[in-house]
């Protein structure tokens, strides 16, 4: 509920900060600069009233900032108070309550306002309120359908929801497809390897131009056989794909589980269909735990030697 005010103050602050840099010229910033300037005038006049002849810039800034915070806080609290009573526009009593809440003696205010040495400040120059740039109009703005009462919010701008289908005939010529796939892959590979070569150490074949044909430097690994023997992830992926497609192709009538088995599942299947001529009496898959192999037996605890 208080968001708008806070945001307002936030934007004010940011406006003031960015105002210090000279380049800013946007209308919003101009507007905020003007307010800030007015505040500064107010602060300096108040200081003059108090008898100061000059002030350091830093002190000025601090006081201005305090003033602005104070006013902002009054505004925010007033709005909060008013919304608490289910209204939308703050009244005088809201402001009064706020000031009381903030520990300000309201009774002193009329006296202060009517003080004699009060300086009159000219009204701040009228600056144009910032213009919200118009959004690009795309398509027709939709009106409410009949069943929606008119006080409901309007549809957002059409560009937020309309879609324009762009559609081209898919390329079906085999040659072009292959050509495309090939060059795409090659481009990806080249870009990738170039990138890797640029970001890491390289070796070069030419002494005059080290950047020509960069080779990613050869790095010895501690266990070289792992990467050389294990299939790469890409290959595993292909394997899965081809396997699954094969399974689709094969009907269940096929009974030969001979060649295609790599994964545990099919290995288990193979256990089930042991050949009749096997050396070992055929075991069932669920008997696997009962295989009597000395390497699977548990390690024995040492015999306890009794000290005498």
């Amino acid at each position, binding site marked *: 509920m208080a968001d708008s005010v806070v945001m307002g103050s936030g934007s004010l602050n940011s406006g003031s900060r960015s105002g210090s840099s000279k380049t800013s010229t946007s209308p919003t910033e101009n507007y905020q600069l003007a307010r800030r300037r007015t505040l500064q005038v107010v602060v300096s006049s108040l200081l003059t009233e108090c008898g100061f002849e000059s002030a350091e810039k830093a002190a000025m800034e601090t006081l201005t900032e305090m003033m602005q915070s104070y006013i902002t806080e009054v505004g925010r609290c007033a709005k909060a108070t008013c919304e608490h009573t289910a209204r939308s526009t703050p009244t005088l009593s809201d402001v009064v309550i706020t000031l009381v809440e903030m520990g300000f003696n309201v009774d002193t205010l009329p006296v202060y306002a009517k003080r004699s040495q009060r300086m009159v400040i000219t009204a701040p120059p009228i600056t144009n309120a910032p213009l919200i740039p118009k959004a690009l109009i795309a398509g027709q703005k939709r009106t409410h359908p009949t069943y929606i009462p008119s006080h409901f919010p309007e549809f957002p701008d059409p560009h937020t929801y309309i879609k324009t289908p762009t559609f081209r005939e898919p390329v079906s010529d085999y040659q072009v497809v292959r050509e495309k796939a090939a060059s795409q892959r090659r481009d990806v590979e080249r870009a990738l390897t170039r990138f890797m070569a640029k970001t890491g150490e390289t070796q070069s*074949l030419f002494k005059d131009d080290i950047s020509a044909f960069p*080779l990613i430097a050869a790095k010895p690994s501690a266990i070289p056989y792992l990467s050389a023997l*294990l299939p*790469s992830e890409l290959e595993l992926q*292909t394997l899965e794909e081809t396997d699954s497609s094969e399974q689709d192709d094969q009907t269940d009538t096929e009974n030969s589980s001979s060649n295609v*088995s790599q994964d545990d599942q099919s290995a288990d299947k193979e256990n089930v269909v042991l050949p009749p001529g096997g050396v070992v009496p055929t075991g069932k898959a669920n008997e696997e735990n009962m295989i009597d192999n000395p390497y*699977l*037996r548990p390690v024995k605890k040492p015999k306890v030697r009794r000290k005498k």
Partner: protein
Amino acid sequence: VPHSGSSMNRKKDKGFEICINNINFQRKSVIGYVELTIFPTVMNLNRIKLNSKQCRIYRVRVNDLEAPFIYNDPTLEVCHHESKQRNLNYFSSAYTAAVSAVDPDAGNGELSIKVPSELWKQGDEMKVMKVYIEFSLDQPKGGLHFVVPDVEGSMAERAAHVFSFGNQNSTRFWFPCVDSYSELCTWKLEFTVDASMVAVSCGDLVETVYTHDMRKKTFHYMLPIPTAAPNISLAVGPFEILVDPYMHEVTHFCLPQLLPLLKHTMSYLHEIFEFYEEILTCRYPYSCFKTVFVDEAYVQVSSYASMSIFSTNLLHSGMIIDQTPVTRHCLAQALAQQFFGCFISRMSWADEWVLKGISGYIYGLYLKKTFGVNEYRHWIKEELDTIVDYELKIGGVLLHPTFSGGKEKDNPTPHLHFSIRHPHTLSWEYYKMFQCKAHLVMRLIENRISMEFMLQVFNKLLSLASTASSQKYQSHMWSQMLVSTSGFLKSISNVSGKDIGPLIKQWVDQSGVVKFFGSFAFNRKRNVLELEIRQDYTSSGTQKYVGPIKVTVQELDGSFNHTLQIEENSLKHDIPCHSKSRRNKKKKIPLMNGEEVDMDLSAMDADSPLLWIRIDPDMSILRKVEFEQADFMWQYQLRFERDVVAQEEAISALEIFPTPASRLALTDILEQDQCFYKVRMQACFCLAKIANSMMSTWTGPPAMKSLFTRMFCCKSCPNIVKTNNFINFQSYFLQKTMPVAMALLRDVQNLCPKEVLNFMLDLIKYNDNRKNKFSDNYYRAELIDALTNSLTPAISINNEVRTVDNLNTDVRLILEEITRFLNMEKLLPSYRNTITVSCLRAIRMLQKNGHIPSDPSLFKSYAQYGHFVDVRIAALEAVIDYTRVDRSSSELQWLLELVHNDPVHYIRHEILSMLAKNPPFTKAADSLLCNEALVDQLWKLMNSGRMHTFNFSPRKFLWCLYGLNPSIYQSYLGQKPKQSPSLIGVAMAPLGLKRKAETPLSSSPEPGQVMQEEPSAKASVKSKVSNLL
């Protein structure tokens, strides 16, 4: 109880207990003890000799009494460092002497233990003795290999592991033992390791027990089957455990994170088991089997009693095509060696060929069953070609050496720069050839006595051995578990009733292969084929063959086999022909396999009914045949002979007949999808060669292009390759090979035709693997190889510096691709980094051809420890090539530095053998690299015990550089600029030698080391000078 194998031994092992109670990965050290129970076979056993290398021995006790001991390892310094003799013959004899001095089969050993006198009397009564030895091992250079990755975390998190390895009998490197294949005993093994680790060893795991602080556990193993020490192994690491789903007594181990790969790789093992058990009609001899996959393995496969250690790089996922057969071959080899090699051991080194032969032979049977007859015959031909090439180039390989006197003069193989007396003195390459020849000879025996008898013999050996192995308390029976040449031959004659003596004499007791030259003429009048078969038996590595030979003649009326007798002086053989020459009658022509085919006979000679002739088609002689027949005959043979070996022979013969007819024959073979894929692959390369020879008359698009387009490109847009689908392996291999062969095409300017290059670039560009079930890494790698093949030397104007600006536009495109591939590999590494390997080769080729500046730094960074081993090898190969081309001594130094210090044994060995293959300079050429410092360095390398398991490699390298000639490198003592090498040779050499001769020979010979008198200095000076001139 003396028995034939170890009659020289004065003791006999019964039981062996090894306990390793501390393995420190941080310090790479091992502490433990061994206890062996021995049974003296002679009176007054006062000394016990055991083998032990690099172990520190703390104490020895015999029957609880402290026993004094002496430790002396003569191989640590083979030639005394003050010795002035520096030549390979001298080294070889000294090294052989050193190895003999500690040979367990002769009752020798590095560790000599004095039996306490209190026990002497007991010895008289032939009582059992228990020898207890405490030892430790610190940073072992051989025997055990520690892999400790340098990352954060505990040793288990770092995947640190250790495993035993070695060349032949090298168990002495990690614990004191009788390191002989013929000394069997039962084993009890205990290993205490960190609780997060697993210790895998031979035999049955009896139990695993925590130590009292619960931080470690002890693995107790028992091996009741008598086993020789070299067949004992150990692997410790944080292994993941997989129990074989088909055979629960088989357990697989791999390093952390690799379990999915292990599951896939091992899903096949049970079939190999079944196969061997079926053909041998014998169960797997051990009660369990373990496979362990380790990193930095020196060899891909090594077999030990009831376990095998493999390189972790054999593991693969289901998406990998190329590795699958390779890995299955390795598994099959390992398993074959379990039966013959581990369970059945050998009596002596001279009997090794039987074990290698049988295991290789049954492995071949497995290949035939699994991969088909074509693959098998192709493999046999390949193996035959390898052994023949080796023997003709280097010298004969002797399977069954006999050493009568023990003098070096009786050396049966004087042509070699090493002694074949001991497995340790051999060259690795020689040993590989030895194994190859052994299984080929087994196949010859099979041809002679039939496979059925052959398998019966194996079964007999196995059942005798398994009966013997169960005789726990009658250890004299155990000799049945050792195979000897004579026992094997006796078994053969008992089972088959056939005398294979001549065959054994020809191929086993004698080295060398047969070299035939054949040609023929057709005598129209007599209707006789006059065949002439000559032999070359004077060159090195050859032998004379006398006996039957099969010749197959394909005539118009059919295929006929003839068996000719090769005799001393008969060169010519008349073979009567069955068919008259006639061509007008349209009739199908019957082939060997009963098939009848239509042939276009217009190409053949109107007067002759001969289509083609094959000499020894079944490869039943270890031979090389150079046969001359007309080009059209080779073409008929290629098209219509159904044997893959014949097709391959025809293809290699057609290389010298660049005619349109050859082109057509090759193209037809390429297109025929019923043809064996390896033949089609070979045809690709032949076609490329022919196309280059026919350059000026070639019509139509470049060879293979339209073929490739038809087979692998889209119908609608022929320049775009189909998305990858490798489900048909034959066409996958063809698709991979064709671009590589096409890139070898050259146009009139000797450049790769623009059309071909663009075609290959398009293949790379449009390569799309998204829908493929298999990985395309090998395919992409071969496309890069194709780009490499297309490179030709740059045209250089007055040796300008290579810059980016003057880069040839085509080369720029190639370089662009290579850069992208190499960079992508960093983000998405391919299996075994095949693409990086190909890219490195491509970059070296670009450098070598002068397109980009020659610079080894890129390769040196890829050669560092920490890259995948294949990548390191490829990078090192490039550095070695650079060293040769640019004659860079700093790079040579850098390489030798690696040989000294690299943590991976395989790399150290491989650097030297690659240097030997591509030496930085040769005997003939004068090079600044050739100086005394280098010789010194290499000499030290081989003279010290540093190289341990592969002591041979530096010798081989030195041999490649200088040959056997002893003193050539001594002429480089004075490092003067050489204006005329021959002149300096004369001037410098005597000087250098004199200086050497003057220094007093103060060293006394080492015990057990035979110092041989060398020919006097003068003689060697002469020989050197003449050699230099």
